[in-house]
């Protein structure tokens, strides 16, 4: 009897976590993506580039300024589990792709929103970096990703040329 209970507990907890990932994880991700789309539309008019030379010219009435933002996103248990299986076979870990995408879009969006709030209509010299903060917990199957985005916000001048 005790053996059966033990077995159920051993199997039940991971299964429960997978189910949680399947239902809650997916719902959270879907909500995040639709929120990202909505917010991205609000900043769609901004000129975003990783060029250093202020494409479009600078309206010097507003001092350009560096803006930094970050986002840290974790996967759900199901995704880590699927990725674990995939690692045995090799190939692309598709379940982590959406994780990276969410983190990057979120972090970049925060930069753009902050720039817009400060009155800028363009950002240049966008840099995206990842930080490994999962280290100790990665072994337990929890994968986190931290993305740091920096850019320079500026206001475009009316007659500025696109390139230097």
């Amino acid at each position, binding site marked *: 009897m005790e053996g059966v209970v033990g077995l159920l507990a051993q199997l039940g907890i991971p299964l429960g976590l997978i189910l949680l990932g399947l239902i809650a994880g997916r719902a959270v991700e879907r909500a995040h993506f639709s929120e990202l789309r909505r917010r991205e539309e609000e900043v769609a008019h901004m000129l975003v580039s990783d060029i250093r030379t202020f494409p479009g010219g600078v309206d010097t009435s507003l001092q350009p300024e560096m803006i930094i933002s970050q986002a840290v996103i974790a996967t759900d248990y199901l995704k880590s589990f699927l990725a674990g299986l995939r690692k*045995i076979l090799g190939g692309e870990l*598709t379940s982590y792709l959406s994780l990276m995408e969410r983190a990057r879009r979120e972090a970049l969006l925060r930069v753009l929103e902050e720039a817009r709030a400060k009155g800028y209509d363009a950002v240049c010299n966008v840099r*995206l970096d*990842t930080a490994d903060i999962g280290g100790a917990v990665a072994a337990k199957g929890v994968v986190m990703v931290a993305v740091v985005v920096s850019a320079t916000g500026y206001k475009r001048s009316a007659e500025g040329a*696109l390139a230097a």
Partner: protein
Amino acid sequence: MIVVNTETVPGYRVVELKGIVQGNTVRAKHLGRDIAAGLKNLVGGELGGYTELLTEARRDALERMLAQAEQLGANAVINVRFSTSAVTQGAAEIYAYGTAAVLSPEG
């Protein structure tokens, strides 16, 4: 498609910027390769399996970025940057990003 990691292309001028385009991939090698790499660690030398992994990943990420640029109607991606991250043990992420642009020949 002109792909450069400089901000300007000699002989061309930038007509229009289409914004940031990006591509990424997270890849892993099968368990056998991981074990082989572990053994290789004992004697040192190049980890062929992982070199291959990065080559494949870089190509995929770049292709995805170019597909995005094409979709936006750009004919060039300028100032391309690569970045990597360790998502989980034994897997690598390669991320490529740049500014999609429309270039036209000078003169």
